């Protein structure tokens, strides 16, 4: 038997330089709040939360080839869960709110997946959109979560092991900042490990040729359902963090444009890599900020820039570092 060098999954950085780049990025985010005004640190917190949502969606889009428009609904649902389980004036510890938010979001995704994953392509897009909007209207049209106005959460928001994070008021934002960073890094590493398993290979097989996967004996429905549920739970972690960061919930965070925005981040950062969505989220947040400074037509500028990136960089921002595909594949046989 000849040993066969196993290629790492195409979604992870193939070069040492790529891996170092990601570590440098994480280190830069770690020291950033000590170098810039709190306004920018909070902006980066928002970007990291958006990155978590986009990263969870990449498990469906980039890894499995499933484009869902209902993904944002699980994110919004989890944010509402934080509000709904928090009793007035008492802060629940994060080790209760996080698992509950993820469990509810994951369970909702499992139910939606059971129905929607029987369809493919355009129909899958429409069915997930319909389910997402159903969840949206539950919060929009009922008094459950304060109706169209939304609701405020009790502060202080982050507490653990009976003690709230007792920072001076001026440094409160640091708490959410680092909790979001830790979760983002954990989510990236967790997904990177998952994609290296046989399960990750099966997802890739489904993306390339689902029919053939069934013919060689894979229960592709079950595998897709597990991925869809897991992605929903991870979106729940992002939504949970959003609620802790902003301190309020409103129906807008459940709407379909959350999914659309996450898709844009994936497209901007690159469909073919796991870190693409993170770069895309950081870039889109930064772009929005710059566009707002320069012009009143923020969305127009954003749209034009995204269009330019998609045309000029078909592999997204993540494709900037590596020269071309065949090169990346060739190195690893040597």
């Amino acid at each position, binding site marked *: 038997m000849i040993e066969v060098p*196993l290629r790492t999954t195409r979604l992870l950085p193939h070069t040492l330089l790529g891996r170092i780049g990601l570590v440098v990025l994480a280190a830069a985010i770690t020291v950033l709040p000590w170098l810039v005004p709190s306004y920018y640190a909070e902006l980066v917190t928002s970007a990291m939360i958006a990155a978590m949502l986009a990263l969870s969606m990449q498990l469906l889009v980039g890894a499995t080839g499933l484009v869902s428009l209902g993904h944002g609904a699980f994110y919004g649902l989890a944010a509402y869960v934080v509000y709904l389980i928090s009793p007035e004036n008492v802060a629940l510890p994060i080790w209760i709110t996080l698992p509950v938010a993820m469990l509810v979001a994951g369970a909702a995704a499992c139910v939606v997946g059971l129905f929607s994953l029987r369809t493919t392509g355009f129909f899958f897009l429409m069915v997930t959109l319909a389910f997402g909007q159903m969840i949206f209207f539950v919060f929009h049209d009922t008094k459950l979560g304060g109706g169209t106005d939304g609701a405020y959460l009790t502060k202080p928001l982050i507490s653990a092991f009976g003690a709230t994070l007792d920072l001076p008021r001026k440094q409160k934002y640091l708490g959410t900042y680092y909790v979001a960073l830790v979760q983002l890094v954990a989510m990236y590493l967790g997904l990177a490990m998952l994609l290296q*398993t046989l399960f990750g290979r099966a997802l890739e097989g489904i993306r390339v040729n689902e029919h*053939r996967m*069934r013919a*060689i*004996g894979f229960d592709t429905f079950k*595998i897709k359902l597990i991925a869809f549920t897991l992605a929903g739970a991870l979106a729940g972690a992002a939504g949970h963090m959003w609620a802790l960061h902003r301190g309020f919930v409103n129906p807008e965070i459940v709407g379909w444009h959350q999914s659309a925005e996450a898709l844009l981040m994936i497209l901007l950062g690159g469909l073919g890599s796991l870190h693409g969505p993170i770069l895309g989220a950081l870039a889109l947040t930064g772009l929005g900020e710059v566009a707002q400074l320069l012009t009143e037509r923020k969305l127009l500028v954003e749209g034009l820039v995204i269009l330019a990136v998609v045309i000029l960089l078909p592999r997204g921002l993540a494709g900037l570092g590596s020269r071309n595909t065949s090169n990346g*594949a060739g190195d690893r046989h040597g």
Partner: protein
Amino acid sequence: MGDPAATTPANALVLCTEGLSKSFGGLQATRDVSLSLHRNELHAVIGPNGAGKSTLVNLLAGEFTPSAGRILLEGRDITSLNVWQRTRAGVARSFQRTNIFLPLTVHENVRLAAQARTGTLASLLSRAANSRTLFEITDLAIERVGLTQSRLRPSGELSHGEQRQLEIAMTLATDPKVLLLDEPLAGMGQEEGERISALLKSLARDHAVLLIEHDMDFVFKVADVMTVLVEGAVLASGTPQSVRESAAVQAAYLGGHA
């Protein structure tokens, strides 16, 4: 899984159908087909275009649900099993149009097929790389179809004939009892055809093989048993010799061939 050769005779009945029928709306594509596949036997199904050959393969592979009739694998009724369940039960197919994972190498394609049978959640979460038996199964299947030289090449770079061989290797890696080969020679040159012919004969030694093929000369050369389908129904079945001599077959199909 066990070694079937140890417990069953060399030419045991592996798969049979009883009164298998399939209609699409008003069109009856398969009519009351009963046939049996034995180990150590290459069973060819021939018939003019539209005779229902591909429908038959799709029924056996679980792609279509029959309108009537049963399919038995070693005595067990598998009629209600879907595609992946049948593959795991031991009925594997190759496709008429090459259906492989183009971005992956030969080895990765075959390994994916070998991995399917360890489809429990726990094994799905093990590292994709490190399973020794998996490598052995994969290498064995690749060696059997004669692609060892090309095992590290991306499958998209293979010649058409090599892709057909890869298609068969993937089918083999699922550890099948029954091989359903849908026109494995499609689009192949003379020399490649010879190689596949030898491969099919060797496969038939330890599997029950159902072969669908257009090339008559080839079929008469390799088949042990033949079934002639016309308009979805079995017109004749038997050894190539008896089929060649059957008056009904000559009238309906072979024409001046014999």
